[in-house]
């Protein structure tokens, strides 16, 4: 850690979000592997993701993916565009703005079923816990 302001925060967020997404990836590989034990076991495992509390947790996943993706582009621009590093600070704020802009509509669809609105699943509304 150093007093690097936007440069430091972008690096730290990139690291934390990367670790978070990797952690979810490993969980996700385990849950799809349940398919090997048959449809019932698989569906019981997948049901966990419909619970309200897991929906709220998956908001962190969506935010992490969006930030990590946008900041990855910022890193690419810094690495491959000769003037890129001069705009790293402005690009950091653009990354945060873009992530929030992408997050809001996706978060709406993920969280809506908790409040009884199911745009992506007309037949099922899972309980909160």
């Amino acid at each position, binding site marked *: 850690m150093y007093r690097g302001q936007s440069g430091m925060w972008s690096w730290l967020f990139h*690291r934390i979000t*990367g*670790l978070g*997404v*990797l952690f979810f*990836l*490993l969980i996700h*590989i*385990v849950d*799809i*592997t349940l*398919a*090997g034990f048959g*449809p019932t076991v*698989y*569906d019981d495992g*997948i*049901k966990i*993701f*419909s619970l309200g509390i897991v*929906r709220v947790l*998956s908001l962190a996943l*969506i935010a992490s*993916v*969006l930030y990590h*993706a946008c900041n*990855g*582009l910022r*890193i*690419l621009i*810094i*690495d*491959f*565009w*000769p*003037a*890129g*590093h*001069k705009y790293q600070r402005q690009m950091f704020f653009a990354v945060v703005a873009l992530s929030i802009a992408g997050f809001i*509509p*996706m978060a709406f*669809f*993920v969280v809506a*079923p908790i409040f009884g609105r*199911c*745009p*992506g*699943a007309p037949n*099922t*509304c*899972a309980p909160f816990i």
Partner: protein
Amino acid sequence: MATTTEPSRPAAPRVVAQYGASARPVGGTAFETFSWYFFRWSGVVLLFLVIIHLILMHVVTDVSMTTYTFVQHRYQNPFWRVYDLVLLTLALLHGLNGLRIIADDYIHTRGWRVFAQSVLGLTVVTFWLMGTLTIVMFPTK
């Protein structure tokens, strides 16, 4: 007349010449150079694969609908099997390579580094096999 001994730190795995567009990896091993480029191109591919996957599985269809039967129908088109295999492979390698860089940042002892890298290598192989077997073996109707 105190003699100062510099704390011995392992050499940085990658040497960066300068900021900006010239900041390609200089020196280091060929593997680290490969890893540097792999992060970048796999990141661009994953950006599309992951965000499309997220939108399809959490927005277009709600997670509560992604049942066994749903996957059976989806996998009738071999495109999605290939899509998921590429996504699985790149995401695992990109993610665990990132964890390797983090481990190198905080583990300074050679023995523990070898240990950490062995654990990471085993994790990649295990999880890749689990995911690949699931995707390849998933029966369609």
